[in-house]
């Protein structure tokens, strides 16, 4: 499938003091796909996403968003990006509509188009009934939706979601997942998670990192058919994941 590459990150490294949090990770995202960034807690998923969104700079490596170099031309690259961090960045003292209007204006949406942009994301995220509410008074699930609304209000080509379903109840998780599937029709999505069912439910391609290193990148199908001497013939996704992660952790440990 020769399609346009929207995110190209090459050889990313990131140190926190002596700790090598991300070690030579390269990520690519094609147009119209959902990439699952998978890994155990502390594997470097959030750090990688922060680098992709310009929140922190990589110690070395290069990032291109829709053909624009994020490190050299941050402003126009950021216009192509929508980002939902682990904790949704919401001003709890603002009302939903007021907050989204601020986000829209921050992302250079012309004044005349702000209202229609807001109405569109309110409908997309099922927030119409909540628009006058104070963000502080919303439930966790609705706050997460406002977080997603904030990330897509400027119709970015790339949406980056950091563990979008953490802390939600099963019904809310279903809703957010179907929202993500909807979004993937018009946007490309990178999604981080440590829940395997989520990957099965929404992702086209999987990128597994462990201890800061890439251990697997390919389609979900390939991952399911992954074979190794240590695995039983009909291994579950979970067994494969556990094996890959533990191998990665061993490798990472040997390098130190």
């Amino acid at each position, binding site marked *: 499938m020769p399609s346009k590459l929207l995110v190209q990150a090459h050889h990313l490294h*990131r140190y*926190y003091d002596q700790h090598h949090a991300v070690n030579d990770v390269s990520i690519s995202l094609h147009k119209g796909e959902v990439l699952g960034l998978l890994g155990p807690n502390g594997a470097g998923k959030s750090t990688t996403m922060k680098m992709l969104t310009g*929140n*922190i700079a990589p110690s070395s490596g290069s990032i291109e968003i829709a053909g624009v170099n994020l490190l050299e031309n941050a*402003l126009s690259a950021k*216009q192509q990006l929508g980002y939902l*961090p682990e*904790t949704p960045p919401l001003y709890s003292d*603002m009302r939903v509509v007021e907050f989204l209007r601020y*986000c829209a204006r921050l992302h250079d949406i012309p004044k005349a188009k702000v209202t229609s942009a807001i109405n569109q994301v309110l409908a997309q995220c099922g927030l119409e009934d909540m628009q006058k509410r104070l963000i502080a008074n919303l439930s966790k699930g609705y706050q997460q939706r406002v977080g997603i609304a904030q990330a897509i209000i400027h119709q970015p080509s790339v949406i980056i979601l950091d563990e979008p379903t953490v802390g939600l109840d099963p019904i809310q998780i279903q809703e957010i997942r179907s929202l993500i599937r909807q979004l993937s029709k018009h946007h490309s999505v990178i999604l981080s998670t440590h829940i395997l069912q989520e990957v099965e439910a929404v992702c086209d391609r999987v990128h597994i990192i462990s201890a800061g290193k890439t251990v697997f990148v390919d389609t979900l199908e390939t991952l399911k058919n992954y074979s190794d001497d240590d695995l039983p013939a009909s291994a579950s996704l979970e067994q494969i994941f556990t094996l890959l992660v533990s191998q990665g952790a061993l490798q990472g440990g040997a390098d130190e």
Partner: protein
Amino acid sequence: MNKISLIGWTEFKRLFNSPLAWSILAILQFILALMFLLLLDGFIVGIQNEGVGKELSLGVTDVVVSRIYLWAGVIMLVVIPILTMRSFAEERMNKTLALLISSPITFTQLVLGKFTGLLMLIVLIVAMVSLMPLSLSLGTSLDYGRIATSALGLFLLLGSFTAAGIYISSLTSQAMIAAISTFGLLLLFIVLYMSGTSSTSASELFIYLSHISHFFSFTDGMLNSRDIIYYLLFTVLFLVLTIRRLDNQRLGA
């Protein structure tokens, strides 16, 4: 420019979403009104009667007006840190800073926006403080020029407090620590002035460095370009430091 005013205006409005700005304005006005009453009472009962018939005597502007501005400056030593701690420390604590950093804005626009938002509140505070001396015009003639320079001086002084507070707020993710450290820093400049003027270790340099010493010429009715430039430099210095600090943090230095 657009982004700066957008951030500034939103920050200003957000101040009034919580009771914080309302209570600060109310308490400030209440305390200063009491001071104003005391000063005015002192003037009417004491100085005014003594001064009758003498050629050189203090007028109401000397006694009441300039002192109310001085007191406003002193009280704001405590108030400004509470306002500036929100700028970055609280955003970091609530993890909302990512919203602004992921948006297509520069750190310069971000810092200037935050600063502008607080400056709007300061304009409001200066205006409210100025209402008290201006109310005297009902009963007597006033030195309006001196009121104008005092108001300008208070604005510049509070602007410099704010810039310093924003910088300290950018250093930490604990709002309380930011507030206390800012208060400490502002107080240090007062101590600098006190040590500069003390009888044993008087030093012109210390007096010059202190932000409060440059305020007195304004309340005396003088517009001294040296003092204006001092405040502008002080403010710009801390804003530039803030921008650099945010950028360094992104780089992980």
